[in-house]
């Protein structure tokens, strides 16, 4: 899931002041930001209270099921058309994609209320770790299911580097060097080290990327993949 963190409230204040906003509508997200406890019903309510305490007039709030689904976000907003028409600006407690879906649909100045941090794994309830950069060409096959692109601060495919000491990564301070962990897991599974991994093909990660499932299905029906 996309892990978000609260954004500096001073920054949000400045953003709202920059357009002279007084009446503010708040949008959350029922998916990732709810799980991260940054943009669920509770947080939308708390943020609305904060707005009121700081001289704004909260005009309403909504938590769409999945805010980064633009048609879904748009239809959630339609149900609050009156409140939106009565608002000067919108603050979105969702990731950057969710914020942009709202910005496309709201017809008002829309401001981010969170920082989008990383693609995370919930290692425990409420505890998330960054595990994938979505690099476009996965190397987990060669690295025992541990991502060095993410877990090595330098993103090295081949390691350990000189920052490794007693198995610990000095660049990270107190965490294990991921390349030591990879070699250990490979060995434990009786798999030899993968040898030297070649340089990454970053063309696989060109932005902006886009995917059309419809297009793929159509081509699939034509027999190609």
């Amino acid at each position, binding site marked *: 899931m996309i892990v978000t963190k609260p954004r500096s409230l001073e920054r949000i204040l400045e953003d709202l002041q920059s357009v002279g906003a007084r009446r503010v509508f708040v949008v959350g997200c029922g998916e990732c930001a709810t799980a991260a406890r940054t943009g669920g019903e509770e947080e939308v309510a708390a943020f609305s209270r904060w707005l009121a305490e700081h001289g704004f007039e909260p005009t309403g709030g909504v938590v769409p099921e999945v805010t980064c689904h633009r048609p879904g976000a748009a239809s959630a907003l339609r149900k609050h058309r009156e409140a939106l028409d009565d608002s000067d600006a919108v603050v979105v407690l969702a990731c950057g994609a969710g914020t942009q879906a709202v910005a496309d649909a709201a017809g008002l100045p829309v401001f981010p209320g969170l920082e989008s941090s990383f693609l995370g794994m919930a290692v425990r309830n409420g505890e998330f770790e960054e595990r994938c950069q979505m690099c476009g060409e996965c190397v987990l096959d060669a690295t025992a299911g541990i991502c060095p692109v993410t877990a090595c601060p330098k993103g090295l495919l*081949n390691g350990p580097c*000189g920052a*490794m000491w*007693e198995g610990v990564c000095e*660049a990270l301070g107190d965490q294990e060097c991921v*390349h030591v962990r990879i070699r250990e897991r490979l060995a434990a599974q009786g798999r030899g080290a993968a040898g030297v991994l070649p*340089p990454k093909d970053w063309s696989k990660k060109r932005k902006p990327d886009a995917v059309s499932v419809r297009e793929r299905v159509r081509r699939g029906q034509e027999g190609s993949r």
Partner: protein
Amino acid sequence: MSRLRDALERGEFVVTGEIAPPRGSDLAAMRETMRIVGPRCHALNVTDNQGASLHMSSFAACLVAKELGYEPIFQQTCRDRNRLALQSDLMAAWAFGIENVLVVTGDDPRSGDHPQARGVFDLDSTQLLQVAAGMNEGHDMQGRPLSGGPTGFYLGAAVFPEAEPWGAQLARAVGKIEAGARFFQTQAVFDLDKLVRAVDALHQHGAKVVAGVLVLRSPRVIDFVNKHLAGLAVPDDVAKRIREAPDPAEAAIDLAVEQVAAIRDIADGVHVMPLGLDARVPEILARAGVAAGA
């Protein structure tokens, strides 16, 4: 022909020194250090934004070394440049007669003086060695021929003999040899048994090993090394010996002399990092019985 390569391949014990380019454009102090250290060395490592801190480019400083008649080892880190820039600099180096290249990963930016910088690490050091080895075969990373034909770089890499687990460290070093490294320069070594272990293993793969010696001139320098130099910790007994000496600088010189003398019997050369005591390098080498490089 690289004098460093020539000496290592003939089995001569080599000496390499270390030069940090200035932060700014004044070359005087660097030239002075080169004149002190250079005559005693087969080659001078010229660092590349060492410690992830800003310095003049290694390439430019290598040219200064050559101008003064000393052979440089051009250090390239993977931290600050992507694959295009790295190959550009390698082509420039070869065009200007720089033959020795030491390829290192580079410290993470967060440990340097521009912690806001984005680390590039488009290639890692093993991959960059492969690229440079490809240039030695006459082609760039895409397999396209280079005008002027193959380069003839003598390629080196870093190894950390004291880093544990040694298995992971050795596997990485062997990968570097397979990628094209012919010599290694080590981080400072205090535990000579571990140096023997590293040299034996790397010799089996046909690589030469130049072992590092640090001159720990004061308690403050020891703290700095422990805190800021990646992959290094000064052992307590060594630290104690220098901290408790009436004259720490002299104690550090004595220690360096002992280390250089011991390394003569183990490794293929010694790399002296004087950490400010550059002027004493000739004396350290002479007292350890190492002949002038020139």
